[in-house]
């Protein structure tokens, strides 16, 4: 296609966006101003095209997908280079039990500040508290599927990479400019994990990794009834049923696909009566569950922290789907607009991406791998950090390619469909 044709196409698409905004009560001039102010019309052609065919996320921003990267609009400017760190109390906003205290203490000692941790129970609570100013925090954990929402709501400030040399130095190249945040305008990565099947090798007789369709183990798990579990998450549980059917579009908003997944999940109640919870990081080791949909950090936590005396590590197994056939995701750090200590927030990001700190946080506490170059399966096996049979718990940079399966932001209608289907599943109706 010639450049001229391409320009014409873009102009037509831009017209489409303007038309849509006009329909939402804006004048044509206001709509154009809004597009120009957000920088979308100039810098974000993928955004324009996606909006045009209807895949708008919150605030009309585009929905990022692994093969369809998005550059988020800048909400203000990053802090200037070379500023001195602030003093006082620095507040980190994160899940409970998802950060090694020693890392916080080291940061406080290094910059001579008090560091405190404020926690949230889930990402909904995180976003709500940030949006309502219910907390005063300086740096926050955030997941990529919420990035569109918090950017549209102007809850984050752009970051200045000059404070975070460890991003380029230590982090996987695939995450220097990730698809959900091109140019890493707002985020740096924190942990990366796959979703697979955690199971007890001494209780499950099937050779799960060598099954034609390992996801189907749940639909053949009659003899493990009462000892099976799926993740207490609308996306993950419905995604499990989709993968069972070989459907790899985990961001689908096709009602037929969602209905089919719901029917398959409902069938599980009679087959193996699965528990729907997030306790798999300990229940596999404790023998309360034998087959549980798990994140890749969970088997490691089972082995490291919860294995009863006398039980060997090889009782805990983890099956990870082949590349592009199972979910992989990562968490991030970002600086909220409300941050009173943005310099420290940047330095925190650099601190957590330090290879030594990242590894310590992983192996001493969270069990969730940082996407750091020096953290490789072979190295972790060689130094005895993880047992060889759990090397599948460790992801590699290539796992994050454009064909990777990642749960990302849905439209409002899509979110409603997924939530309703999940609510029906867990109601046992």
């Amino acid at each position, binding site marked *: 296609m010639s450049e001229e044709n391409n320009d014409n196409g873009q102009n037509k698409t831009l017209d489409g966006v303007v038309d849509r905004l006009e329909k939402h009560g804006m004048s044509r001039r206001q709509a154009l101003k809004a597009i120009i102010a957000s920088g979308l019309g100039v810098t974000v052609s993928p955004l324009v095209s996606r909006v045009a065919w209807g895949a708008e996320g*919150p*605030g009309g921003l585009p929905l990022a997908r692994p093969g369809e990267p998005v550059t988020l609009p800048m909400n203000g400017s990053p802090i200037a280079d070379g500023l001195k760190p602030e003093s006082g109390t620095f507040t980190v906003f994160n899940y409970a039990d998802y950060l090694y205290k020693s890392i916080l203490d080291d940061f406080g000692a290094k910059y001579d500040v008090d560091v405190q941790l404020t926690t949230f129970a*889930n*990402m*909904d*609570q995180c*976003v*709500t508290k940030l*949006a*309502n100013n219910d907390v005063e925090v300086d740096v926050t954990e955030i997941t990529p599927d919420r990035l569109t*929402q918090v950017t*549209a*709501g102007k809850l984050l400030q752009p970051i200045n990479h000059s404070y975070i040399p460890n991003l380029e130095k230590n982090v996987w190249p695939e995450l220097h400019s990730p698809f959900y945040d091109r140019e890493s305008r707002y985020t740096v990565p924190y942990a990366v994990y796959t979703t697979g099947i955690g199971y007890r090798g001494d209780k499950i007789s099937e050779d799960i990794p060598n099954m034609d369709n390992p996801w189907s183990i749940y639909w053949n798990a009659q003899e493990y*009834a*009462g*000892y099976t*579990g799926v993740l*207490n998450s*609308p996306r993950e549980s419905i995604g499990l049923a989709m993968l069972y059917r070989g459907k790899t579009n985990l961001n689908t908003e096709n009602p037929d696909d969602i209905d089919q997944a719901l029917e398959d999940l409902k069938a599980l*109640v009679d087959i193996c*009566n*699965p*528990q*729907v*919870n997030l306790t798999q990081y300990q229940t596999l080791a*404790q*023998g*309360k569950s034998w087959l549980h949909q798990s994140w890749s950090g969970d088997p490691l936590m089972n082995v490291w922290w919860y294995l009863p005396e006398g039980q060997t590590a090889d009782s805990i197994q983890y099956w990870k789907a082949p590349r592009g056939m199972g979910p992989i995701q990562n968490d991030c750090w970002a600086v909220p607009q409300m941050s009173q200590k943005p310099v420290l927030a940047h330095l925190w990001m650099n601190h957590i991406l330090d290879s030594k700190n990242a590894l310590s946080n992983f192996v001493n506490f969270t069990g969730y791998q940082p996407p750091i170059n020096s953290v490789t399966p072979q190295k972790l096996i060689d130094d005895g950090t993880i047992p060889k049979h759990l090397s599948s718990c460790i992801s590699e940079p290539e796992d994050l390619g454009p064909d990777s399966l990642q749960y990302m932001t849905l439209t*409002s209608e899509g*979110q*409603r469909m997924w*939530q*309703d289907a*999940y*609510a*029906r*599943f*867990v*109601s*046992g*109706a």
Partner: protein
Amino acid sequence: MYPRWLWKALAFPGVLWLVLLFVLPFYAVIAVAFGTVDPIFQNPVPIWNPFNWNFDNTREILAQFLPGRRYWTVFVRTTTYIAFAVSISLLIAYPVAYYISRHARRTKVLLLVLLVLPFWVSYLMRMLAWVGLLAPDGFINSFLIWSGIDESPPNWLGGHDGTVIYALIYGYIPYMVLPLVAALDRIDKSLIEAARDLGMTARQTFFRVTLPMSKMGILGGCVIITLPMFGDYYTPNLVSSSPSTSMLGNQIYLYFHGGPQPDVGATLTVVLAIFLSILMAYYLYSVAKAQKDLQ
């Protein structure tokens, strides 16, 4: 002489308490149920003016409670669990209360203290203790295997109706015993003596005098434990977490806990409140009738 307004003024703290801690929060829930949702953050946006309320959602959700529809199964399951739990609680609590009221003389205070003792430990901790006991390798199963009662006992935490009902009974039974003790204590002993003097057997005295006169305690205890059970979501979560034992409270929690439909959670809360207010109306009617009968 005291001024007449003084007696009305004494009610002020109670009225204030009710307004601040019940009326306003409940109005907020209604405003959320009939309100909208922030398009970006998906937070509830309450509509405070009743003239602007949107009832479409409520109509749709109410329709889903009909047989065969979306909430029918979970509603029936919840009601069944609670009916069993309340009935069994009553069967256990009444003899205990009767004993404390009638036969425990010097040990009465001690027994009452022991009854209140569970309140000193949080509900969550008490339930977690039972999770440990009911675990596949917990004391219950170890005992069953050791005693030869069951060589391969079930996983009690693997989604059993009985486990959830049992947990509800365990969690709420102290609330049933206390009103019963109070009701039985209030029965004038001379009435019982009169019944026996007039030739009634002990059994007849119980069924014709004691039981009818403790009806208010029975109803009060049932109401006190029924109301929180209907909103309970953590008990099935802790001892089962299976869809097959999910209760209506779990659905409310799910919609409030996150996602784009907090208004659905609020609407379910309102629907549940309406249902419970029907039960409460019966309770209040019974109280009024019982008081009239006594006069």
